[in-house]
């Protein structure tokens, strides 16, 4: 506990370095490309187009009806896809944060968690921009989200805490076991389909008791995944304009706290030997 507090103090004291590391990530990411920053919007745009064509137009997934009678698959998708992209970005970024900076860790002394936090924070900046674009799109399509911006921002922070905890955990795991990255890649793929991003959650929650899903107890297992609740909360607020239930909010807060606590303790437990393990 004492170690945690002193680590927190150290982290806070080096916030300026954190800022510089974030700037490094942001500036370095698209340096040398001719489109530069546009890439941070083009990538989600491309996946939006693909999912809209495949699931909206070809497979004809029916999106739920949102606020003010809004029923638009693309917007329905984006309300969940953007948080998902942020989550998977943090998990992947966290995994690479230590390995990618091996030289820095071996040759200089500074609080190592800053590298993971910088990866998280720089992605959060992109996340903010994407969400701002989405808000404009929602406004254009008649579902005025202005009242919901602040709660959404809070939810984004809770998601960031949740994802960063995992990122911290995986960053050290990947140093000690290099194939963590490959397991996580598979895990993320499974998780993507196990989260109602491209389809409405009603497809899972409203199954009849004798269906295959219910008989295999997939539906009860399904809701163990905290991301289901995160994504639904985003959709509740931005697409349907109502607050998520108190139970959901509790689940979100508890999973963020548990993830952060576990990530932080695991990271501090194993970060001492990073310089020699890298």
């Amino acid at each position, binding site marked *: 506990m004492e170690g945690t507090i002193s680590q927190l103090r150290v982290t806070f004291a080096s916030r300026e370095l954190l800022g510089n590391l974030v700037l490094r990530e942001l*500036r370095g990411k698209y*340096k040398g490309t001719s489109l530069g920053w546009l890439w941070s919007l083009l990538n989600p745009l491309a996946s939006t187009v693909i999912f809209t064509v495949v699931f909206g137009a070809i497979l004809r997934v029916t999106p739920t009806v949102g606020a003010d009678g809004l029923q638009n698959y693309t917007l329905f998708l984006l309300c969940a896809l953007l948080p998902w992209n942020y989550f998977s970005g943090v998990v992947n970024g966290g995994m690479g944060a230590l390995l990618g900076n091996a030289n820095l860790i071996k*040759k*200089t*002394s*500074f609080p190592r968690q800053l590298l993971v936090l910088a990866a998280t924070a720089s992605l959060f900046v992109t996340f903010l921009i994407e969400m701002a674009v989405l808000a404009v799109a929602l406004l254009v399509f008649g579902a005025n989200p202005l009242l919901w911006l602040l709660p959404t921002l809070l939810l984004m922070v809770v998601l960031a805490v949740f994802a960063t905890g995992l990122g911290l955990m995986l960053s050290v795991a990947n140093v000690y076991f290099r*194939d963590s990255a490959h397991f996580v890649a598979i895990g993320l793929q499974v998780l993507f389909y196990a989260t109602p991003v491209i389809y409405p959650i009603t497809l899972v929650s409203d199954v009849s008791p004798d269906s295959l899903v219910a008989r295999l107890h997939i539906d009860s297992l399904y809701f163990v995944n905290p991301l289901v609740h995160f994504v639904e909360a985003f959709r509740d607020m931005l697409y349907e304009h109502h607050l998520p239930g108190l139970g959901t909010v509790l689940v979100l807060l508890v999973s963020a706290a548990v993830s952060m606590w576990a990530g932080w303790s695991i990271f501090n437990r194993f970060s001492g030997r990073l310089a020699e393990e890298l």
Partner: protein
Amino acid sequence: MSDVAVEAVGVSKRFRLYHERNQSLKAAFMRGRRAKYDEFWALQDVDLSIPSGKTYGLIGHNGSGKSTMLKCLAGILVPDRGRTQVHGKVSALLELGAGFHPELSGRDNVYLNGSILGMSRKQIDRQFDEIVDFAGLETFIDTPVKNYSSGMYVRLGFSVAINVDPEILMVDEVLAVGDESFQRKCMEKFADFRAEGRTVVIVSHALGTMRSMCDEVAWLDHGKLKGVGRPEELVDEYVGASHEDRVEESATAEEEGPRHNRWGSGEVRITGAELVSDGRVTTKVPTGDEVAIRVHWEAAAPVVEPVFGIALHTLDGVHVTGPNTRDAELRTGTLHGTGWLDLRVPRLMLTPGTYELTAAVFDRSVVHAFDHREKILRFHVLPGTPRDHFGVISLGGAWDLRNESPAGDGGAGAVGRTGS
């Protein structure tokens, strides 16, 4: 500030040597744990107390643990046992420009690197011009560092690190960067550091520099502290000991080692060469000692007036000297049977190091080689008197300093003298 700047108490550091660098989960499942490894103690129970305001050196051969020690002191490695304590702000120069982002400009990297080394933005703002000026990169500061030459890169790295304004500076073998003038600037900066009463901890193999820069050195050997003391004494002791190690190694190596180049028609053959000091055959001699270089010969049939010669080379191939009997106007007469020839050297004026002897015998015209044996003998010169250690030879001179027009009211001119 306390009198001790850096303190290490009972520091031990263990490394894991993996048999196979295969950190896979599969391997972990198969064996029930992670890859097998051997333990290796890079440091064992080392105590150091580095006084503040002094320049302190760590010496030792490769693998002696000195860099590990420095990393423990700098907080990069965490010791397995014992503790380290640092009183004051540390800047460690283990690698210059570590953490530079190649795509970012020099300017951005100065800010980034500075903050990694613990400077605040305001501090960097204040010192930015000085940093750029010191590195001599005014015109390139907005160019991405990936376009820098390696010299520019390390110069900028050094310049940032040295301007961090640390109370304690830790340096690992990074003094030899840049060109002559940049090195001079670095040395001046170090001198300023010392004058300002900051603590400097250096790890280096450049023993000459260590000797002249350090106030105190610690000698690490296989992870253990072998001694702490004044640099002149300890560096000499270290040089002596490392040569002894090498003699033991080379004694075995020479027996099986590859034959060096040998050619000649064989009328007179060189059967061996050795160093004789005090009537005993040896391979190590201190500077300034009397020694004889002995060449053994053998002639199956009488040979008239052969010419013997030897050559001395340093290990990196510098030809130090090459005396022969003809230049010395020694008449060798007719040789038949076996015997030896001595070159008696009253004072061996070679500086400490390892040298190689080549011996040859020619016909009287010195055109035709009877026998030419390259590198027939390797020997070591140990520190002796004179204590010169730069270059290859010592002139054995004596210094004589005079002050011809004394300032003030008088007395005789000060005369400083150091004999050799």
